[in-house]
């Protein structure tokens, strides 16, 4: 697996204290998700729309027999929407939820790099953040003079799906 910036420490310490993140672009910012959670990256394809869902749920696709929902992260974060272009990709991730593992696809502008991120280098997100709801941000980290936003995808996806149950569909 190629890394853009090998950490200074030995392999052992790298394995212990650093994690690999896949980064992607979204409206000019670079976001990172834990690479172990990424199942695959695929091109944008037609989806089947689902009624009674928020606009950022674009629909579902058939991923080798499984019905997988596709979220538009631009819409999820309240960013300006753009037409999907040749670099537009769907990052399929596995997230943990109260009911077990879910597979969900996220539409992003483009995939970027894979970085090794040392846990010691990460900074907690500031309390106020302009565009992104900060609860979904696990940490910020500076790599090659760029800011990387590390996402807590369990929380992001869980919040995007489970917390918006259709009223009356379930009694907790």
């Amino acid at each position, binding site marked *: 697996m190629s890394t853009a910036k090998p950490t200074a420490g030995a392999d052992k310490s790298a394995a212990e204290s650093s994690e690999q993140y896949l980064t992607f672009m979204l409206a000019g910012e670079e976001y990172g998700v834990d690479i172990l959670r990424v199942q695959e990256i695929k091109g944008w394809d037609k989806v089947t*729309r*689902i009624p009674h869902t928020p606009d950022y749920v674009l629909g*579902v696709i058939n991923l080798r*027999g499984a*019905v997988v929902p596709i979220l538009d992260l631009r819409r999820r974060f309240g960013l300006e929407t753009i037409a999907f272009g040749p670099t537009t990709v769907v990052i399929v991730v596995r997230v943990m939820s109260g009911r077990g593992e879910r597979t*969900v696809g996220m539409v992003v502008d483009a995939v970027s790099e894979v970085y090794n991120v040392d846990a010691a280098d990460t900074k907690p997100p500031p309390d106020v953040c302009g565009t992104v709801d900060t609860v979904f941000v696990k940490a910020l980290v500076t790599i090659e003079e760029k800011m990387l936003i590390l996402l807590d995808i369990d929380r992001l996806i869980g919040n995007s*799906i489970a917390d918006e149950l259709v009223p009356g*569909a379930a*009694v907790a």
Partner: protein
Amino acid sequence: MTIDLEMAEIAKVFFQESREGLDVMESGLLSLGATADRENINTIFRAAHSIKGGSATFGFAEVAGFTHGVETLLDEMRNGVRPVTAEAIQTLLQACDCLREMIAATEAEQPLDQVRIASLNGDIKHILGEANEAPAPARAAGDEAAGTHAASEPGGWRVRFEPVADLLRLRNEPTRMFAELRRLGTMVAHADTSRLPLLDALDPESCYVSWNIDITAQIPRGKLDEVFDWVDSGCRLEFTPTGGSAPVAAAPGAAAQPQAAAGDAWSAETKAVSPNETKTVALAEAKAAAPADADRSAPGGAPAQKASGDSGSIRVATEKVDNIINLVGELLITQSMLSSFADGIDPNDLDRLRQGLSQLARNTRELQESVMQIRMLPISFAFNRFPRIVHDLSRKLAKKVELKLSGEGTELDKTVLEKISDPLVHLVRNALDHGLETPERRVAAGKHETGTLELAAFHEGGNIIIEVRDDGAGLNKAKILQKARERALVAPDQDLTDEQIDNLIFMPGFSTAEQISDVSGRGVGMDVVRRNINDLGGHVQIASKEGLGSTIRIRLPLTLAILDGQLVRVGKEIYIISLLAIVETIQVARERVNTLVGHTEVFRLRDEYLPVVKLCDQFGVEPDSRSAEDGLLVVLEADGKRVGVLVDDLLAQQQVVIKSLESNFKSVAGIAGATILGDGTVALIIDAPGLISSAAKQGVGAVAAHAA
């Protein structure tokens, strides 16, 4: 089929489940040694609770009584009252073994090992801190006997013990006697194996070994006689006092006395250390206790009959079957993909291709159906045990109950069925114990003295619904709320709707029963019920009217099911409607459509007015046309209500494999699930009852009520 036969079938299930429960308890207890986590204790406790409940139901009072002690100990551990000590774990493990034997004996209709039960019960009570001054009877008797004889005695004895070959078949255990001798003083036994034949000539149930035993103890001859009392007809005995006296030959005694209970007690203890390897090793390792026990307690009689239910069926890992089902599902998709491809091929080859494809289609479908059938079982498997449960419980509680069952033929996935059985038992027990009132109270409340308990199963949309209805007292909302506040399940100032209060009973650790009984009331029931159902992807809800009764509604997804579907098109979207829900499809004539108060349209179908649900509005899709006469009206029926659903076009009818939307997403109102069409795209399956109720939310329902 007679009642007895049916009961035997059901009891067999109980025995099977109990064994599984014991396995769970055992592994739980074993891992408890390392970490004493609450969840683990809970699991063990639930297993014990199920065994107790089941055994009580079938009238195995001894098993139930014994388990009750075990359960009480576990309950105290669970509540943190009792520390989890190694001693307690050991005792509980022994209790598991004992229970396993009890269940085996009960199943084989053999007498129970009372001594062992009493002794373990004593141990449990001891741990529980209750006075236990009564040790196992057999041991007590032995000790007493030891005290009575104190006559002249030499310094020791040499005993020559030559048993006859069928000593073991007469269910005597030499080691039992050795253990007894060891209690008298220092004992050294030398085995004489000169009679031992070669392996191929060896009969594993015969005893070929004789012993020379030296005992160093000042004991009277009578003590030794006592030890060998049970075997004296089945062996040659020679007693020589070591210390000068001449050998005394022991005359073979009269009749051997069968002392089954005591014999079993000792053999259980000495099994593992028996010197007779061939037989006892086999016994100790035999996991199924039943044949071994029967062997021992029925000398020369019929060997215990092996569990007869095994014939004609094989146990296959569910995983494997699931794999096949998935594969066949894929096959179906491939097949329809090929079918659509066939439409654009060279006409010359078309016929042959079509022929092959139709054959493939038929084979695939048959294969899929038969594979699916492996997993489907009628719910009567779960329902059949209830008449007896209700019968026994109502007698015990002195209540009059009429049980009504309906929809027993509804087929359910085997896994779902297995997992739903226990929760159903809990619900039925609860309904009888807490729901239905005594005849006096019922009469006082102006109801018929016989209460009604209904169990119903039916299909609704992509789900199976199981309802447990009683016409009892209903839930006491005030009491529930008070209890919930006491237990801090609800904040003191929190306002709850009636429905929310009712559903509080599904919270963990919630039980309003004043008295803990073996019927219900430990608070394991309802939260486990809900968890089990949620684990199945289902949903449970209770609706209750005080004084009128309660209805518990379990909604289970029809996982792994296929559906005969009608593909419909609205704009660019394709949806699937279950053929079961479709009454008819009609072309709409303009003059038959009227608009009620504002913009709700109704359609006159013969002498009935149907509300028109526009799928395009429901699902927010852009249709070809918004006016009713350009489209088709699909008349759906669910829950006794009919609506007309307006679609642009009807497409093919085909069987579709239901894929859950919930596994990766969530449930969506009006959608029962999804499927994958021949071209690989996903299509949504319409949930007819859900669609009707979500239409009702938008005001159409009021009209539906009018029209109906």
